[in-house]
């Protein structure tokens, strides 16, 4: 089978939330092509494509989430060849800010980890002061902030301001519903970038790593 064909079948299985079929497809592909190739060319490619389809309204958020769950279950425990590269990356973290709706963060984390990006999970329902403390204590250099509520999005400006005053250089990427409904909001609150999908989060994180 070609990678295109494998990816097509894998995506169908994920969108049907057919865990058994999805994992069988990956097992078979790994036997033929090896783990690294399959994770890079099938898993991450498919998750990015599913994310793009959600952006265009062709698939639902529940399908995006369950796809991420199935992929992360498969990847967890496997030694990825990215380990050495990951050790040289600056500290990165993701957080669900001020609320407990962690779905967006979970989806983004799945695809980041699939790409071998060692992003720490700082938790859910985290308010500004504890977040600022964690970022400073852990020397986080790239911070992804997910939030659901419009007032919470506005409070990110305080996080930005306090980190700037502390002299701590950190790139902030934001995402979540409020930013999808106002495409100027991320700039207003002082973020460095805004991701509309999990694939955006990966692309933006990789761009910042290259800078």
């Amino acid at each position, binding site marked *: 089978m070609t990678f295109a064909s494998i990816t097509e079948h894998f995506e169908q299985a994920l*969108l049907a*939330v057919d865990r058994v079929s999805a994992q069988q497809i990956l097992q078979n592909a790994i036997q033929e092509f090896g783990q690294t190739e399959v994770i890079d060319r099938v898993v991450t490619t498919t998750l990015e494509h599913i994310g793009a389809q959600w952006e265009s*309204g062709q*698939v*639902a*958020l*529940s*399908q995006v*989430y*369950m796809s991420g*769950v199935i992929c992360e279950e498969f990847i967890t425990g496997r030694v990825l060849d990215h380990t050495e590269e990951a050790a040289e990356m600056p500290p990165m973290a993701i957080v669900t800010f*001020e*609320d*407990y*709706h*962690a*779905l967006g963060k*979970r989806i983004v984390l799945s695809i980041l980890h699939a790409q071998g990006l060692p992003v720490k999970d700082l938790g859910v*329902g985290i308010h500004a002061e504890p977040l600022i403390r964690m970022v400073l204590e852990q020397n986080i250099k790239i911070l992804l902030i997910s939030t659901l*509520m*419009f*007032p*919470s999005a*506005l409070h990110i400006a305080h996080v930005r301001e306090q980190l700037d005053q502390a002299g701590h250089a950190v790139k902030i990427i934001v995402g979540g*519903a*409020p930013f999808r*409904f*106002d495409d*100027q*909001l991320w700039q207003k609150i002082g973020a460095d970038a805004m991701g509309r999908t999990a694939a955006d989060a990966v692309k933006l994180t990789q761009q910042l790593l290259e800078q």
Partner: protein
Amino acid sequence: MTSLQRVLTTLGHQEPDRVPMFLMLTMHGAKELGLSIQDYFSRAEYVVEGQLRLRKKYRNDCVVAFLYASIEVEAWGAEIVYAEDGPPNSGEPFLRKPEDGLQLEIPSVKQTPCLAKVLQITKQLKAAVKDETPIIGVVMSPFSLPVMQMGFEAYLRVMYEKPDLFQRLMQINSEFCVQWANAQLEAGATAICYFDPVSSPTIVPRRQYLRTGWEIAQRTIARFQGPTAIHMASGNCLPIVDDLAQTGTAVVGSSYVEDLADVKAACAGRMTVLGNLNGIEMARWSDADAERHVKDAIAKAGRGGGYILSDNHGEIPFQVPDSVLSAISEAVHTWGRYPLDWIDAYDG
């Protein structure tokens, strides 16, 4: 025409005197009374006074007995987190394990203090507005409530992986929803807004919705003793419009991301469209922006009745300034008068 007459006419897919306007204002009453949001919601009298002032100030065609979405899980004992500048939010989900949902006991809709307060508000609003203005009560759908009960991730996994637990939870939530809706109608609510964002194709695919949220909406709404609006709280509705029409709902809320003209065309004659101004962007609108967005919406959906102008989420953010609300109201009163002849020359 009174506001109620105006709304009933449009619900009958006839053109009233002007396009009705539902400014779904929940927190702005706090500004009117000079109170914090938490203090404002602490007493029924404050909310009633706030709603009546807002109705007069903006010539709103409804009053709203809805306080905040998390009030239902508050009734179940969940933590509520108050903010100075936004709606009270649910804290950590109170069902620490999904299986704890099997032990849930339905809270009393008349004895639980936070719910009793809403009923008191409804009764006092009814005494004040009588039959002039629709009073909108709100319920969370049984299918969407678990997001606050156990968290979104845990709920999706229950929905897809634990069908027995999912069904039992829906039975419990449906019973509560019916009791809560009917208590509000008994107290004087004119209609119930059935908030059901998880049913939106934004969240679950249609085939999943037909097996779950759609069946639940049909059997739950059938037991309501009054009319219903279904609102997806910014989620899409167009791909499931034909399915929504079979739930018995009279009204459907439209998302900003959808073309209002397409939604109106799909609903025409079957359901009234509510929406779809962007509440987040509204916070930075100029007066000219407000007028333009109102004109666009009316041009797309106003003709033939069957349309109520509103925001796309069902709750206008606290950050939206009074000047914008005034501009929206002014624009509706200027451009919303039927027969809307200006639309023929309007190019947006």
